[in-house]
């Protein structure tokens, strides 16, 4: 068993190799806590690297001591040594170390109070398996949207999180931590993006069959660009040829402001074609994908409430697709 002495070396070697491999693999940092683009995420990524470095050192010291205890030639023999070893190693060191960590770590707890104004207020209602969004305008009106979050860079945004069915959790790793949406209460989460770009958020609490497919693009704009986007979102739809959409009954569930205002079950589609994805981050928005989605939504997304439109005439379906693709 001379091999025992190799445990530490091998472990460390394997650890560093895997870590390097993993970082290489991380070529797509849209949804990564380690590629921060928000204030909280930056602080937490730093905290992570700091704690990881500290942890690695402690691991090496402890395993070094353990391996030395097994193979070392010169050994202490006194009980007093054991007592001191346990006292300083097991009591003093962790107490001091953990106290310091707590002071620095808990300083990162959110420190705003109810009533502190945020720059932008976004209402989020998590539903199986998509996100109903409402942006508050300066005069308090709510602009409905769904499944794609747009934010201005540098602004502190407050998300008010609700749910109509089960527990979900709203998480944009690149911007900061997550917060649960729990029936019967409204949780609040504040994020401040620091870099413009396209990121991705997901549901982090298991919520049923398509939990894995409940995501959303997050677009962080420069302020002017955001204002322009927001102005468009406040307008009703401008598209002709809504007949197929209306006659197929899509309006029973979906609102397209200016055309069909009754439905409230599914996502608001007023500016559907301005979004990047279909099915809450499930498919890229293309004409072909939209057709597939209409034919077999529950095949793509198990448990989705949207019915299949496989039985209607192909021409009618094409017309619906064409109409939707115009809803910029």
């Amino acid at each position, binding site marked *: 068993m001379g091999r025992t002495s190799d445990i530490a070396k091998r472990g460390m070697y394997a650890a560093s190799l895997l870590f390097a491999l993993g970082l*290489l693999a*991380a070529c797509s940092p849209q949804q990564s806590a*380690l590629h921060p683009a928000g204030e909280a995420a930056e602080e937490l990524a730093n905290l992570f690297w700091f704690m*990881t470095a500290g942890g690695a050192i402690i691991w090496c010291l*402890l395993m070094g001591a353990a391996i030395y205890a097994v193979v070392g030639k010169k*050994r202490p023999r006194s009980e007093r040594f054991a007592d001191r070893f346990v006292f300083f190693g097991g009591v003093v060191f962790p*107490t001091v170390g953990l106290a310091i960590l707590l002071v620095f770590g808990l300083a990162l707890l959110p420190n705003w109070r109810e009533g502190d104004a945020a720059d932008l207020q976004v209402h989020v209602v998590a539903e199986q398996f998509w996100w109903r969004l409402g942006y508050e305008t300066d005069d308090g009106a709510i602009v409905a949207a769904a499944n794609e979050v747009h934010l201005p860079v540098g602004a502190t945004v407050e998300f008010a999180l609700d749910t109509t069915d089960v527990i979900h959790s709203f998480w944009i790793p690149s911007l900061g931590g997550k917060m649960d949406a729990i029936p019967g209460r409204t949780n609040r989460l504040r994020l401040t993006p620091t870099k413009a770009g396209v990121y991705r958020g997901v549901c982090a609490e298991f919520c049923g069959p398509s939990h*894995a497919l409940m995501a959303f693009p997050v677009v962080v704009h420069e302020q002017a660009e955001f204002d322009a986007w927001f102005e468009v979102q406040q307008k009703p739809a401008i598209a002709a040829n809504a007949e197929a959409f209306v006659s197929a009954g899509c309006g029973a569930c979906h609102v397209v402001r200016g055309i069909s205002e009754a439905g409230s079950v599914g996502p608001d589609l007023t500016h559907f074609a301005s979004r990047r994805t279909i099915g809450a981050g499930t498919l890229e928005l293309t004409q072909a994908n939209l057709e597939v989605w209409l034919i077999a939504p529950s095949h793509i997304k198990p448990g989705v409430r949207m019915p299949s439109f496989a039985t209607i005439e192909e021409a009618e379906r094409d017309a619906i697709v064409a109409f939707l693709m115009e809803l910029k």
Partner: protein
Amino acid sequence: MTDQATEEKQLARAWARPKGLASFSDVNNSVIGVWYITAAFVFMIFGGVLALIMRTQLAVPDNNLISAETYNQMFTLHGTVMMFLFAVPIFEAVAILILPAMLGARDLPFPRLSAFGFWCFAIGGVFVCGSIFFNAAPDAGWFMYPPLSTEQSGIGADVWLLGLSFIEVASIAAAVELIVGVLKCRAPGMHINLTPAYGWYVLVVGAMILFAFPPLIAGDFLFEMERAFNWPFFDVTRGGDPLLWQHLFWIFGHPEVYIIFLPSIALLAMIIPTFSQRPIAGYSWIVLSAIGTGFLSFGLWVHHMFTTGLPSISLGFFSAASEAVAIPTGIQLFVFIATVMLGNVVRTVPMLYCLGALATFIVGGLTGVMLAIAPFDFQAHDTYFVVAHLHYTLIGGMLFPVLAGIQYYYPFATGKVLSRAYGIWSFWLTFIGFNVTFLPMHLTGLLGMPRRVFTYGAERGWDLLNLVSTVGAFIFAAGFLLFVWDCVRPKGKQPNVKRNVWNAGTLEWAGRVPADDWGLRSIPLINSRYPLWDDPKLLRTIDSGKGLLADAKEGRRETLVTSVLDAEPVQVLRVGTPTWLPMLAAIGLGGTFIFPVWKLWWPTLGSGLFFLGVVLYWLWTGTAEIPEKQTKDVGNGRRVPLYVAGPRSTGWWAMFITMTGDLTAFLAVLFGYFFFWTVHPAFPPRGIEGPGWQWPLVAGGFIILTWGATLGARLANAAGRVALARGLLAAGLLGAVLSGLALMAGPWTTGLDPTEHSYPAIVWGLVVWIVLHLAAGMVMQAYALARSIFGKLTPRHDADLWNVTLYWHFTGFCALLTALVIGGFPLLQ
């Protein structure tokens, strides 16, 4: 010499194992322990296969090997099986096997209870696991958060709730057994402070089970009432709150992590001194930190709920508490390292596993320290980072120590040793495979991969990391299979090992090889923590029959009961012999829990009555038996009573411990009442009238009557006034009936509808809980009365009455508290 031979023959006859088909009626701890360990490992392999299928599904992005539906059932079952059917039971299984020998007892105090626990575990486990083959497994996660789980159609959630409640009964039964074992069945002279470290851990963990499992049972009770009868405890539209379940679940769930971890550390605390050839360096350190860890583990549960929107002050408090538990945990590791440092190390396979456990567990501990910082948890919570963390703690803190323990205790159980070559190979395969699987997951999680996803997109950039994890999982599995093969392969030609093969210092190695079912030839007097090292004449004393209880003249299975602190012999306990009753009782109780899944109420009732009948017969024929003589000569001129009652007896302690757990469950239900009070602006809510104060007052009066009458019956009986005692028992029975009726009359007369709102639901929940306990109490009153009438309970032999009185101390208290709360609390509003 002939005396010696006769005595040995008597022992062999009394402890003979049943043969053939009847061997399934065995109750001896060395048999039940092996069954229990085997069953736990079978379930573990099942859970492992589920994990491999899931890892295969996740090996590549956008995979469709299994559907979302199947995946969700699999991860739910994987967690459930590993926690409830492996991690906790393996502790009880190993303890049942080794504890009596370690303490110098011939068996545990209630062998039939161990057998009952085993059969509950086996039946419940097969039921829960089997559900997946009918596509009916629970699929809302092992944490079962409502409303996802309450609103789920199908029977999956019921399988989970009822199946696991049933298994929890087994866990609690074993905990009671083991606690009494450590407190009351130590060899004479083994003062509490000479108890092997393992015994201390069993005590701590047993106590933790008693305080941790009941809140879950209470939660299950509320949950099943919601699913079966639409009582809205967790439904926000009717005043319920899903967070109540999260609190109850994690008040159980976090201590449970330590319930799993501590007994495995206890194995290290036995193995490491042996292979260091010296006593553990810091016995007091390790005992105190085990107690400290157990205590602190109850104050951390909220760290599973950091992202539910609690105020920062709570987050800070629970962060600090979660960090604090790292200190006693760390001390235990430092004690191990110090022991090895001071000792003369023998490099064996179990030691290799110990080092592997240390290397793995420290990683898990350090990531735990990271996660306990609430803001960091906001990022890492519910991601693969947590998956990595929990597997490092469980595999480093439980699986590797258990494998070390199996390597170490294999000769104890079988007389053979495991192969060194296989051991080294399986260690490196499992150790490397494990790290290849789980180390990358830290990164996968922080790169944004949430837990419990059945697939992920190729564009996320997680494919390589996941593929590596999958490859590692198969290496891990290969190593584990090699280990299992080493354990089960035929070893016919291998000679038996020599006695005390590892040259250990503790009493479990004093037995002969192959081991005798009755344990030691005679029970020696113990005066050190490592008697085999410290007393060179020990084995001769044992073998020559010069210790205590060297014979079985009456042909009965006997073990010594000693006092809690000083281990002075107080009784020769005649323990249960092989019988089918435990299995039959488990089948009956199984039916009572399993039939409600399909709402088959008549078979449920039938099973319940069958269970009750079996248990009464079991108690009537097998417990508190009046012996043929008052005392028995146990050798060395000592005469020890054969019958004791009250706090000196094992039965009284078992009742006390069981009722402590029961009280905890009741307090958890009561916590529900006050939890609802805190979440509602008005409680009782406007428009709903409470149960009034009059009927609860009447109920309380009758409960005091019952309580007092039963206590009076015990005193009267002890004073020889048997007729008065019987009259008081009958009066108590009547009082229990009336108090139950009065308690129900309150909410009944004011028309409280439990399906309307959480307030009437929790009032009825408390009432139902108490009425069920009153009903059990009525059975006990009637039983004690019958025992008295049939001469099995006399003024001198009154153990039954002591236990029934003790039952009423607890139940009377709970019932009074209930009457006070439901009747009195609305008056304060």
